């Protein structure tokens, strides 16, 4: 009986389920490397992942030891966990035991498997996204067909002298390999081969699922193609196709991992208790000291990103400002076509599909600027093209290097020795050539004539505008106060020579800067027709309120406002005062952050962060989201005035403006899920950087402009680099702990949402995320969610030493 291709595809889909997703570098989305195992409880998933991919799932003993010695793990909490499990050994003895177990189980260096090597070579050739001067031919026919044409030239495929020596299609190839094997044996066989190079496989898997991936549409590749090639090569190499060891079922728990799990839980509980105590203190202070709120000079809305907490705190301290937190794509599911860019980029979360296209066009008053910019771009482009030709042309390369070496050597020396000066020069050049952010406006209005075939609709209908504006104010629980200026500030990083720039940009914008989305929401909110519709829905924006867009540079903490200074929409004095205060907040925030870097070189925080932003050899331009530990959903009064050390996502929310729970439901199913992906990526990248992270940046190479490999080839690296997680070789910066969500809302409302959102309750029941509810209808009691759906009072009611306690007593 011929093999049914539909059945084959289903078996492959099942076998690939444990493998996660890997996005290409330009949209490097954070994701849980164990995403495919998220339907299982956390500890079980870790066991299974160890069997499938190798690697650790818990922090190492020395990580626990350091946390223990530095007082991050509360001895009482640890003792309680030990007592609960009936373990009598002392903490010290347990640390020793874990250390010994690690020494015994030290993994051997990965074997240099010729089959893996052949696959990596073909994959690298096929997925190249414009780096190769001589790209692989026949790619339009798909991976299997292209490989079949070229395999005869590869010495690694024995007995293939002509394409006809190889099966004609991927189905034939798999039928050939599977002949005589029962269908029940297919999935374990496929799983074994799909998990051998999880980096490449997760890259293909993501690409297959993408709805609009130009590379996939032009050069299709599927897991079936991949397996057809891999199994054909394996068979011809005379390899056994099935795993030597038994099936890859999760091994039973070892004592060492049970101890590690216990230490992890004790550390998490200690850390969460500290945070909850801080919140308690903050709530007491704000409820005692809040006078009748005056109209602030400005309200600034930042991304929920943990980095926003620092700058928000400093802005609130420098002047009469109010800050809010909202997902950094500002609720606009869009693709952004930047001015002059060849293709658009998605700027919304990985779990959201873009529904609109927003293009930047020169504003009428600034067409001269656009012309000047275009002219400079043409000159630069011609220069780049000439340079590439000279570098890659066999005849010209040697003469070119000899003739131009001095110039490039000097540029190299300047970049290395005086990065800040070069950064200043870059800024001067931008001033001269023009910045599209300043002379362009987004096409916010719907323009059907400009739609492209198969493209997303350009601009937004009136209904869509009203929907996104209303959603923003409802989700944030905005209330009635609108300041004269409301700023929506997206964020982006500034880092040259960094293939992982996307991992430092906005996670809610698919690893892109959020400024373009901020501009769209600001334009919508300034639209009188939108304001009229919002008024009918109870959102009354005063006539003197102006919405501005801006972008927070997370590397330097500078905030740029996208304002046309020739024709400012608010008074020049108000604008000047706001800018001066933002600059002061930048100074304070940069001072705070530069203290967290080892070996700061510049004298002030701002200078230090500017140097990091300009230095092409800097492996730690900023910490990104390292340190993230909690996701707080509630009003600012929960956290205001307390330093959270940039470790908390802050999503504004007011339970009083959300009677039916829709806003909270949207936050729990959207932003919280993205937060969980970020948290698990940091967790697993920290606990096993070689398997789930991407190793040291020093030895990174970019593969085909698409992904990162270590050294000169091999499997794709899937997670974060060591330098994003560790202060130096010895000390970690990120504490590998699971995320805790804190929700300020009545507990029955939260329960009702969990009951109708299986996706969220599954994350909680499987312990990928913890949840604490602060119930305002029950005296702000702290209640912790227990897997299965019960609640227990949080065991940390004792606030920090608080003078108010004494007064109350």
């Amino acid at each position: 009986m011929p093999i049914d291709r539909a059945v084959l595809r289903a078996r492959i889909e099942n076998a690939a389920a444990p493998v996660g997703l890997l996005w290409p570098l330009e949209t490097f989305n954070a994701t849980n490397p164990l995403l495919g195992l998220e339907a299982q409880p956390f500890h079980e998933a870790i066991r299974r992942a160890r069997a499938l991919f190798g690697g650790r799932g818990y922090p190492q003993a020395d990580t626990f030891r350091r946390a223990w010695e530095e007082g991050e793990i509360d001895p009482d909490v640890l003792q309680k966990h030990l007592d609960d499990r009936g373990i009598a050994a002392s903490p010290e003895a347990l640390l020793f035991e874990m250390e010994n177990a690690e020494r015994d189980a030290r993994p051997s260096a990965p074997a240099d498997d010729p089959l893996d090597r052949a696959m990596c070579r073909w994959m690298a050739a096929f997925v190249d996204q414009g780096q190769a001067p001589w790209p692989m031919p026949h790619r339009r026919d798909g991976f299997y067909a292209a490989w079949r044409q070229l395999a005869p030239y590869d010495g690694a495929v024995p007995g293939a002298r002509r394409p006809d020596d190889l099966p004609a299609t991927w189905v034939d190839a798999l039928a050939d390999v599977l002949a005589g094997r029962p269908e029940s044996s297919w999935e374990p066989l496929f799983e074994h081969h799909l998990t051998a190079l999880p980096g490449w496989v997760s890259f293909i898997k993501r690409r297959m699922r993408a709805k609009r991936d130009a590379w996939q549409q032009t050069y299709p590749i599927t897991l079936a193609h991949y397996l057809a090639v891999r199994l054909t090569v394996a068979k011809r190499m005379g390899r056994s196709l099935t795993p030597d060891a038994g099936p890859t079922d999760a091994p039973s728990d070892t004592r060492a991992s049970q101890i590690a799990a216990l230490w992890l839980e004790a550390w998490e509980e200690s850390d969460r208790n500290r945070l909850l105590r801080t919140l308690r203190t903050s709530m007491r202070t704000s409820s005692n000291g809040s006078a009748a709120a005056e109209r602030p000079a400005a309200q600034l809305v930042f991304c929920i990103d943990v980095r926003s907490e620092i700058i928000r705190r400093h802005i609130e301290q420098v002047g009469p400002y109010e800050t809010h937190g909202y997902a950094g794509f500002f609720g606009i599911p869009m693709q952004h076509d930047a001015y002059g860019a060849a293709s658009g980029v998605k700027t919304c979360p990985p779990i959201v599909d873009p529904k609109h296209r927003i293009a930047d066009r020169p504003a009428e008053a600034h067409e001269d600027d656009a012309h000047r910019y275009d002219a400079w771009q043409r000159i630069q482009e011609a220069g780049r093209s000439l340079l590439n030709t000279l570098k890659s042309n066999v005849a010209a390369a040697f003469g070119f290097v000899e003739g131009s070496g001095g110039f490039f050597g000097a540029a190299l020396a300047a970049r290395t020795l005086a990065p800040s000066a070069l950064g200043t020069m870059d800024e001067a050049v931008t001033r001269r050539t023009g910045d599209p952010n300043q002379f362009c406006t987004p096409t916010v209005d719907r323009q059907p004539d400009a739609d492209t075939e198969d493209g997303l609709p350009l601009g937004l209908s009136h209904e869509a505008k009203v929907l996104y504006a209303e959603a923003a104010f409802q989700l944030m629980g905005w209330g009635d106060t609108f300041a004269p200026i409301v700023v929506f500030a997206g964020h982006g990083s500034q880092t040259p020579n960094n293939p992982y720039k996307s991992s430092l940009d906005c996670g809610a914008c698919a690893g892109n800067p959020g400024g373009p989305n901020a501009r769209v929401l600001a334009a919508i909110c300034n639209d009188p027709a939108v304001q009229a519709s919002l008024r009918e829905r109870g959102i009354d924006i005063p006539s003197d309120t102006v919405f501005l867009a801006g972008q927070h540079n997370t590397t330097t903490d500078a905030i740029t406002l996208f304002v046309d200074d020739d024709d400012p929409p608010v008074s020049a004095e108000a604008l000047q005062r706001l800018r001066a205060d933002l600059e002061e907040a930048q100074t304070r925030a940069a001072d705070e952050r530069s203290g967290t870097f080892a070996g700061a070189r510049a004298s002030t925080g701002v200078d230090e962060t500017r140097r990091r932003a300009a230095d092409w050899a800097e492996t730690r331009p900023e910490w990104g989201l390292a340190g993230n530990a909690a996701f707080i959903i509630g009003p600012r009064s929960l956290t205001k005035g307390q330093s959270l050390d940039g470790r908390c996502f802050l999503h504004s929310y007011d339970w009083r403006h959300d009677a039916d729970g829709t806003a909270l439901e949207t936050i729990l199913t959207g932003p919280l899920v993205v937060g969980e992906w970020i948290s698990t990526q940091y967790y697993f990248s920290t606990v096993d950087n070689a398997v789930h992270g991407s190793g040291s940046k020093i030895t990174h190479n970019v593969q085909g402009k698409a992904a990162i490999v270590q050294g000169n080839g091999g499997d794709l690296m899937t997670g974060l680099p060591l330098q994003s997680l560790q202060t130096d070789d010895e000390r970690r910066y990120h504490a590998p702990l699971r995320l805790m969500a804190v929700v300020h809302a009545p507990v029955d409302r939260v329960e009702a949402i969990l009951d109708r959102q299986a996706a969220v309750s599954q994350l909680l029941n499987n312990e990928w995320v913890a949840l604490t509810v602060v119930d305002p209808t029950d005296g702000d009691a702290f209640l912790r969610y227990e897997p299965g759906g019960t609640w227990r009072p949080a065991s940390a009611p004792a606030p920090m030493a608080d003078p108010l306690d004494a007064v109350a007593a």
Partner: protein
Amino acid sequence: MSKPTNEQSQTGQTPHTLHPLKKIEIIVPSEKETFVQELLDDSGVSGYTIHRDVAGRGSHGFHEGRLLFNDRAGLVMFFAVSSEDTIQAIVDGLTPLFEKSSGVMFVSDTRVVRLNKFLGEADE
């Protein structure tokens, strides 16, 4: 809606003749949408309908429909009508999937007026 006379002149049959066919309804998590879509594209059905963001309760609990900021957590429902052989091919491709992944399918008898519209290349 075409008038009966047009219908009659095109098919040579009365407008009320109903032809028996099979209908398949499939509900899967939205992450399987591209998988099912490719299966249907491959199977030779002449067309299909997709309902995104459907709501309902299953063995994994309740799934709410429309979510503003998550296009991945929802359920997708497909339905297609075709000959028994074509529908059987789809069933063959989904049966192994449901061994590991959540989802349901229902096959039922249905009748259509314009037979040509529902018979894909494989059946012609």
